[in-house]
């Protein structure tokens, strides 16, 4: 009884050693085995033969490519053991099978391919049961299939007929496919048994099982099938094979293989497939596909079955990609997580090589991620991915560069760009020089000419600016900014009708450009009277509605933030150029006005969250545009002296942005119209508390203070306003009046003269309304 138990434990040990390929332990175990029973001798021969062969393979690993040939002196011992085991014929049938399989492998090693194939035919390789086989047996079968494939490849095809050739090719590939499938099963089983052992067994585990290393034969089985498919131009089945390997549950040994294959499949999906030729991993592939070499069309479905298959990822709600970019992304994310796991962090010199390897494998993945995400416009996600790459990226130009670009593309540096694009007063001359230089360097660049014209316009050199803007228009006739600038320049020369004609022309090319529309409203109320202007406001509301109704089919705001963002981004990029909500009349975007628009935004959000009806979700820009439309309408109403209509319009804007300084300013205007000066003063003060540099509010407030006789305070405010924007002629005029009232006639005269001069060159809307983004 005790002996039997000991024997079975020994058998378990032997089985485990064979499964885990610990060949050096076999010798010790065989000694114990032979001591037990004489009938074990054949078994011992088998085991010794196997162990010596495998040890030889471990010491002299086979390489892909050249195949072994000729007898090897070191293997004569192996053949002796195996022949001994086989010749006596005492072995049980399944052990005979095993001995034969080892023998065939030996035949292959010595270049006797025919003999090896003969052995496989005799043993009946295809009939060996996979169910209930111990892991080591699975390994043997997998290696046998792989060896069979190798032998078949080596032997010349007996027939020359093409169809037979194709059949033969398919037979070889099927061998490898089976070998690969069983290899995956084997690796899963070994790992399962190992983890079970660790969990069940004594608290003191023996020496931890070493990481399995894949033998040459298993590796061949796993990789040769798809290589052959691609070589034969059968992309469909190659992709199918990749997917089968990847769908099998991963083991520690297959991690590297999976990482590479995932990346390669992603490459094929991105380089060789398109949406219309795609089929998903759970579907059958199409029978005819443009992916495949038309001359070698074969069956695109699998033509073999195994009694047991490797476990695959499964479950009720598992994600299955539905298009090629989706699948490529999923694969790349998996590769990325693996590459990240292998990121070599230590910076000591001796790990330089490892660092380079880990960097290379990661940057390949990141490049592919960039291609896939760029295709779908997902720059935000891309910047997040590339941020993760930064751990590899010490002193690595490419990754940093790409990261920076992705941040730009995702619009994350807009705030810093905004602060850069403004041209400070004292820098204006330098800017002018720079633009002049740029224009002379590249006379065919319409942008250089345009920016030069704009800069000249801002410094009120109207005729010169006109010259350059015409040049810009000759280079690029339908550039919206150039057309806009031309109209503003004409309005500065008080040719309002010409300006309006230009605006109409520009709008026929850019019918949905709100900045152009806003200027048009102002021009219309001057040239064609308020009715036309109001009509334009109405038209704008319709455009607004058609733009945003269309892009926002479900405005339920279900928290699909990415979707919203995507739409917002696309809108921002393509069609709608949005009016700058920061004060256009200031010569530059001051820090305070950026801050003010942020405060405006934040306060408005707080305020509107108190009112449940206010629209809060979705991108902000459309709502800002809408508010601007209402404010323009209000301005027209104020112009024709209709306070109640104006108030209704302002209320619409206030519903969207209750804390906007523009809204507060307009309220002040209405109050003034109604003769309610004190109320107006309060509104202006409120506007200034939100945006301390809002020049229009400053000017109106100082006027009121002037009327109240508070000259010095009015003067102070006006001087501040001039500091903010030195080209506002109303401010200079008011300043003159205040100074005059204080008896400072000389200074007042100077102010009036400045005001006159500026008024003569003042456009209908400040030039700075034109967006300046390089």
């Amino acid at each position, binding site marked *: 009884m005790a002996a039997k138990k000991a024997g079975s434990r020994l058998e378990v040990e032997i089985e485990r050693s064979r499964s885990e390929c610990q060949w050096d332990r076999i010798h010790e175990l065989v000694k114990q085995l032979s001591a037990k029973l004489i009938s074990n001798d054949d078994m011992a021969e088998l085991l010794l033969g196997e162990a010596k062969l495998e040890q030889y393979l471990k010491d002299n690993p086979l390489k892909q490519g050249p195949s072994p040939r000729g007898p090897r002196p070191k293997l004569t011992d192996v053949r002796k053991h195996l022949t001994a085991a086989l010749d006596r014929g005492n072995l049980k049938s399944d052990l005979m099978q095993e001995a034969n399989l080892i023998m065939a492998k030996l035949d292959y090693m010595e270049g006797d391919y025919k003999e090896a194939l003969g052995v496989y035919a005799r043993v009946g390789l295809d009939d060996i049961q996979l169910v209930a086989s111990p892991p080591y047996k699975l390994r043997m079968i997998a290696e046998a299939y792989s060896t069979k494939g190798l032998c078949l490849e080596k032997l010349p095809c007996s027939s020359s007929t093409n169809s037979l050739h194709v059949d033969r090719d398919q037979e070889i590939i099927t061998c490898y496919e089976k070998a690969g499938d069983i290899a995956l099963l084997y690796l899963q089983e070994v790992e399962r048994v190992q983890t079970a052992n660790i969990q069940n067994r004594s608290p003191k585990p023996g020496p*931890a099982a070493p990481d399995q290393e894949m033998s040459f034969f298993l590796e061949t089985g796993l990789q040769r099938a798809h290589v052959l498919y691609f070589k034969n131009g059968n992309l469909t089945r190659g992709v199918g094979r990749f997917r089968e390997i990847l769908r099998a549950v991963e083991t520690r040994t297959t991690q590297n293989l999976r990482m590479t294959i995932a990346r390669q499949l992603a490459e094929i999906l991105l380089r060789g497939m398109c949406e219309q030729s795609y089929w998903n991993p759970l579907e059958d592939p199409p029978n005819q596909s443009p992916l495949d070499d038309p001359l070698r069309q074969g069956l695109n479905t699998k033509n073999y079955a195994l009694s047991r298959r490797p476990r695959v990822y499964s479950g009720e709600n598992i994600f299955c990609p539905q298009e090629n970019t989706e699948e490529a992304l999923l694969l790349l994310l*998996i590769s990325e997580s693996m590459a990240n796991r292998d990121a070599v962090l230590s910076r000591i010199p001796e790990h330089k090589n490892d660092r380079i390897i880990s960097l290379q494998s990661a940057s390949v993945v990141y490049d592919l991620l960039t291609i896939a995400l760029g295709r779908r*416009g997902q720059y935000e996600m891309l910047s997040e991915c590339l941020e993760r790459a930064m751990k590899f990226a010490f002193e690595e130009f490419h990754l940093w560069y790409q990261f920076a670009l992705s941040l730009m593309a995702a619009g994350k540096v807009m705030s810093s760009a905004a602060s850069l694009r403004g041209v400070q007063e004292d820098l204006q001359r330098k800017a002018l020089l720079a633009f002049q230089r740029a224009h002379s360097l590249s006379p065919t660049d319409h942008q250089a000419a345009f920016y030069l014209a704009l800069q000249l316009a801002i410094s009120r050199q109207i005729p010169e600016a006109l010259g350059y803007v015409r040049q810009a228009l000759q280079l690029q006739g339908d550039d919206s900014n150039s057309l806009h600038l031309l109209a503003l320049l004409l309005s500065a020369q008080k040719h309002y009708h010409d300006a309006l004609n230009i605006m109409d022309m520009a*709008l026929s090319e850019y019918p949905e450009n709100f900045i152009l529309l806003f200027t048009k409203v102002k021009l219309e109320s001057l040239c064609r009277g308020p009715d036309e202007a109001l009509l334009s406001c109405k038209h704008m509301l319709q455009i607004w509605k058609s733009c945003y109704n269309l892009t926002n089919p479900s405005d339920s705001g279900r928290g699909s933030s990415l*979707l919203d963002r995507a739409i917002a981004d696309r809108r921002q990029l393509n069609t709608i150029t949005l009016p700058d909500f920061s004060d256009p009349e200031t010569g530059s975007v001051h820090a305070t006005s950026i801050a003010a628009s942020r405060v405006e935004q934040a306060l408005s959000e707080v305020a509107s969250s108190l009112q449940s009806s206010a629209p809060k979700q979705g991108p902000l820009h459309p709502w800002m545009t809408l508010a601007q439309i209402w404010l323009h309408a209000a301005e027209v109403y104020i112009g024709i002296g209709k306070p109640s209509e104006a108030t209704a319009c302002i209320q619409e804007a206030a*519903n969207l942005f209750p804390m906007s300084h523009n809204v507060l300013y307009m309220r002040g205007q209405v109050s003034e119209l109604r003769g309610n000066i004190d109320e107006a003063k309060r509104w202006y003060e409120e506007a200034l508390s939100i945006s301390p540099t809002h020049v229009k509010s400053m000017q109106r407030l100082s006027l009121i203070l002037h009327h109240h006789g508070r000259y010095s305070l009015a003067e102070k405010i006006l001087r501040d306003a001039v500091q903010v924007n030195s080209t506002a002629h109303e401010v200079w005029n008011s300043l003159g009046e205040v100074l005059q009232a204080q008896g400072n006639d000389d200074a007042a005269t100077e102010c009036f003269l400045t005001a006159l001069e500026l008024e003569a060159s003042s456009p209908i809307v400040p030039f700075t309304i034109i967006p300046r983004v390089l």
Partner: protein
Amino acid sequence: MLTTERGAVEEWLSEFKSLPEASLTSYAVNLKEKTTLVSALYEVIQEPQSELLEPVCHQLFEFYRSKEKNLRIFTLQFLPELIWCYLSVSTSRDLQSSGCIEALLLSIYNLEIMDEQGHSKVLSFTIPSLSKPSVYHEPSSIGSMALTEGALSQHGLSRVVYSGPHPQRETLTAQNRFEVLSFLLLCYNSALNFMPAPSLRSLCHMSSRLCVCGYPRQHARKFSGVKNRIPASSEFMVQLLTGIYYSFYNGEWDAARRALDDVLYRAQLELFPEPLLVANAIKASLPQGAIKGTKEGTKCIQVEIAPTSSRISRNAVTSMSIRGHRWKRNDSADLTLQDELTEIAEVDEGFCSRAASSSSQSALSHSSSGSFSRPSLGKAQRRSLGTRAGVKDRDSGGDSCREHLSRKHNQRAMSENLELVSLKRLTLTTSQSLPKPGSHSLARTATSVFSKSFEQMSGAAVLHNAVGGNHIGSGSCVETNRFSACSLQEENLVYISGRTELAVPGKPQPNLHQRSPSICITLSTD
């Protein structure tokens, strides 16, 4: 154009008209064999003055409208050439001749933005997330790597719209031009596998010409004809890159290589981050040299044998090994007290090796990591002496590799600099003649050419505003209001119009009539 080619086109025009419905499929299948016809059609498209252009465009649209997939593909293969012809003609402002090409492009666009039921197409896709199990992975096996802030914030899958819904368009304006063209390229890209080689070549060639015309590089590329710079949007360029990327690996290596360089050149000049990103990535991921040698015209999708064992040496500190290290320490409850102490001490000394996870190797990893631990640790130092030689050996190997990489890196940087330098020089020396001050009339299209087809289309469409440009507003007024502000707006509009008695919906806007004369005045004064 040769008479034989002309004959092929004329035969093609007449044959299709007399084709019975039943033989349509076989006709469509055989069509792609007719290479003379295809090249003749390319010639027709390239020649804006050809009197065949109009019937050809018309028939290409008829093909696109049919339910036969092969016929649609046949039309689609000419898309790059059509886009180029449209852009090059529209920049020279000779608008009459591009009228039928423009109408064809618009018609394809208006067909493609609708699905079979006549609803606006919205193209969306799911961003996969590692935190959700998929056919290829289980979140648990990815480990804590998936639990970044970003991953948590979008836990689960998010569906993202990447194109659409697009509005019907009756004309191409400067504002919508590249929106329409980008969408058309998107359609083309989704059928790349069905595109024959000449079409891919035409795409690459179009990209090159579009990106360099009017820039100094035009002379280097020896493109004649178009002198002006043709504007391009960054989204359009990204779409071009998709096709270029495909061309690389499907037989058009050389053309694709040139096109990629030119897109990169233009994207750098325009400071477009999106195409720069994608083009850089494509360039960096090109296989080194291996494919160049292969014969032009062959597919070159390659797979390599994957190394199954990790190429990273075991004692290198990786993100994984650090994690494994800590994990082991917390988890092995059965360690004796002393073991635990030494192990903690190791961590304190700044050892991050895999010592704990593979005890058999601990000696080696101790010694190698000893070289970067504090020198005061006598024990580690003494041990490190033993393997000094080995360390040196590996070191030198690493150095050469590193050197190689950095050299490569320098080369890249240098070539970029050279490019910039040469660009500057060229810019300084070129003084391109300014284009003639032509009339700046607008891209009024010859939609009338296909008015019949458009009518049919708008009949199928849900939107009713596809009839004339002046009715845009009136159509959308009927639609239900979604936003509270909009509904308010509607009330106020009624109010406004009541007061002013001018808001007649659908009243033609005066600007349409007054536009053209003013243009001539303003521009000719120069």
